[in-house]
């Protein structure tokens, strides 16, 4: 069920009431209840894939215990490899089988070899890219002795399947989330109120920003050949806000929902479009994924410790794999590589850790230099998003080419003023709140102002609810 669906509006309060009033006797009942509702939540999509997540969880539960039990380094490695092969095997099969088969066939055809391909009608299990990475990080952390494996199967299964973050992240680390399952949760008014505010903000971003942008984005991207350059630019910019509203909106709802049950998840977006360079953007966008790749791929490859060439190689590997993680299409790989290319100059000049403070800290407006940096960084990401959104590489290149070829010095055919106002509202609120956890983190404001803001945001969300319903974009990953 979607977070912005009627079923979830019924599901969440029921789960909340049962959790705090009937299943609050101890950790065991709390965690068992979380596990059951998480499986109900996941099974709502497709009950057939419950066995997959259960099997994945069971393998990693057993593997982690055995890694700790054995003293032989070789045996530890074998168990870890078993976990990696199982999890990545499922991921590769469900997500990439057809892509590899078709790509191989095309590649062989280029050299005159024709083969019979056998593609399968595979349904991608929702959330597989997320929970797979979550469980892999658990077994690796146990292997690295960063974490002791849990002996409580309920706790572990609940950690893997925890419903707010199961299908689209944040990709939680066991070091953060698993210990929370090993302590009884107590209701906190402040925490729950924070959660409600964050859910409201997430719904605003998804329903008002993302779904309304989607209408124009789909219209233009699906027929880019007929639109003028100005409309193409506008559609690309709107996509940047669609994907931000969609994905960060989902994360906010996930984090806010978790707070209602006494859990703290990691921050996944930190106002990325205020970044002054690409490296800062990647410290603020989909933080759980980028830190995952840093900790479990970049650093094991040597990171930046073994010279510039190795650092460049490792950087490109990370960005390419990150692109590939998003989907079985060359466009995602191209998007990843593009971001790697953007990152390269900063890496070579040792400026990739330059902007680590909060922009315009303790000032109301940024400096002119900062504004220019923000705009340049934003447009670089927009260019990358064209690849992310396009169906094929040639579509992406033609889209960009048409921006210049078909540019007219007149009002673009697609000029949704209403969307610009919404985006301006979003940017304004997030700019004011950039030092806070999210746009509606207003617990320090007077009560009347807070309630007025809640009402305004709620009514805007109801009134400008898009007539077309769109799945969360990251569900397809």
């Amino acid at each position, binding site marked *: 069920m979607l977070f912005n669906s*009627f079923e979830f509006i019924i599901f969440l309060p029921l789960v909340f009431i049962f959790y*705090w009033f009937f299943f609050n006797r101890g950790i065991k009942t709390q965690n068992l209840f979380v596990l059951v509702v998480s499986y109900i939540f996941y099974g709502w999509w497709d009950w057939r894939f419950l066995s997959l997540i259960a099997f994945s969880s069971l393998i990693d539960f057993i593997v982690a215990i055995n890694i700790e039990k054995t003293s032989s380094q070789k045996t530890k490695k074998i168990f870890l490899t078993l976990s990696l092969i199982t999890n990545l095997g499922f991921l590769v099969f469900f997500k990439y089988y057809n892509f590899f088969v078709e790509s191989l066939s095309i590649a062989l055809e280029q050299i005159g070899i024709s083969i019979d391909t056998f593609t399968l009608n595979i349904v991608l299990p929702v959330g597989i890219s997320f929970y797979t990475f979550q469980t892999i990080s658990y077994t690796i952390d146990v292997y690295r002795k960063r974490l002791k494996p849990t002996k409580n199967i309920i706790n572990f299964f609940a950690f893997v399947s925890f419903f707010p973050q199961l299908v689209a992240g944040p990709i939680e680390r066991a070091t953060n989330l698993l210990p929370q399952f090993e302590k009884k949760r107590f*209701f906190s*008014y402040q925490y*729950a*109120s924070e959660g*409600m505010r964050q859910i409201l903000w997430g719904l605003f971003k998804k329903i008002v920003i993302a779904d309304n942008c989607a209408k124009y984005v789909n219209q233009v991207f699906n027929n880019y050949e007929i639109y003028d350059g100005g409309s193409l630019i506008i559609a690309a910019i709107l996509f940047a806000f669609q994907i931000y509203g969609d994905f960060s909106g989902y994360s906010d709802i996930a984090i806010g929902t978790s707070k209602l049950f006494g859990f703290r998840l990691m921050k996944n977006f930190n106002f990325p479009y205020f970044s002054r360079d690409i490296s800062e953007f990647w410290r603020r966008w989909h933080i759980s994924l980028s830190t995952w790749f840093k900790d479990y791929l970049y650093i094991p490859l040597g990171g930046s410790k073994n010279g510039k060439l190795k650092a460049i190689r490792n950087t490109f590997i990370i960005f390419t794999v990150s692109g590939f993680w998003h989907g079985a299409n060359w466009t995602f790989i191209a998007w990843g590589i593009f971001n790697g290319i953007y990152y390269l100059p900063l890496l070579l000049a040792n400026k990739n850790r330059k902007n680590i403070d909060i922009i315009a800290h303790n000032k109301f407006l940024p400096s002119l230099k900062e504004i220019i940096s923000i705009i340049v960084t934003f447009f670089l990401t927009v260019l990358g998003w064209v690849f992310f959104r396009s169906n094929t590489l040639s579509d992406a290149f033609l889209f960009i080419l048409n921006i210049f070829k078909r540019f007219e010095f007149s009002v673009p055919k697609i000029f949704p003023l209403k969307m610009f106002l919404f985006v301006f509202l979003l940017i304004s609120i997030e700019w004011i709140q950039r030092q806070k956890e999210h746009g509606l983190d207003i617990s320090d404001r007077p009560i009347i102002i807070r*309630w007025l803001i*809640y*009402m305004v945001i*709620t*009514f805007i969300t*109801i*009134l*400008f*609810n898009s*007539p077309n*319903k769109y799945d969360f974009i990251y569900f397809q990953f």
Partner: protein
Amino acid sequence: MKKFIINIIVFTLLLFGIDSLFIIPMNKLPELQYDKRLELLFTNKLNFDAYIYGSSRASRDIIPKQIQESLNITCFNLGFLGSNIEFHTFLLHETLKKKQKPKLVFLTLDDKIIQYNDRLGFRMDKLYPLVKYDHINEIINKKEGKSTLLSRILYSYRIKENFPGNFRKNKPHKLDSIFEFGSQTVSFRNKKFKDTIYVDREQSYLKDEENSILIDSLKSFINLCNTNKINLILVYPPEFKAKNEAFLKRIKLLTKDIPIFIYKDRLEYKNPNYFSDVAHLNKKGAMIFTNELIQFVQSKLVK
């Protein structure tokens, strides 16, 4: 926990309280529309012997007052710019909900009547301002995939499609003005039409572009007339180009015994002075065409 639950209850009460204020603009919406035809239809205030359905080719090319005076029957035009056969069928269905059913119905034919195209559609925008009526609300919910329950408990959700544009008093556009008995004839000529030349070549029609939903709608329209024993006349008004014989052949096959009035070949229909644009007659042209239509009806009635 107590404080949290109290806050949720207070928030919910406040939400519904503020939401109830939206009932005022909801009730005001129909008054702001200059085209009141649909409201008259849905509130059973239309009681005519004959109705004209179709797109702008119905509303601009056929003059109901002329039909009234010549045939001695009351007549009303329910043609809507840019509307498709699905919409016409819906309007006919609404018309037939009344106790007194019409005796005669005209349906104009566009070349694209059973082909999907972006010029013709189901005019949801005409229904939105009438959302205060429950059955219109249900239709909108069904068509737009909205939650019926939410639309019943939240007025703001119910009227959201009207934000913000429909809350200004609508002024009639020169191409969408309403005259007597629903007529929308225009007397001026479109600027772009000035240099257009009459197209005398054979028009094409591709069966592959047909849309099954639109074909079903056309069949439903015909069935509704048959079931209710209403005389139906299909009308093919002139355009500033040759007749699409391939389309007419196809329509005759689909509609079988239903009388089709096809405009006669006259010099006026090749003269731009009788057209407002390539697809529509102006008032002068509409008077000539309506007269021909009346003669056709009279000949049918005599038979």
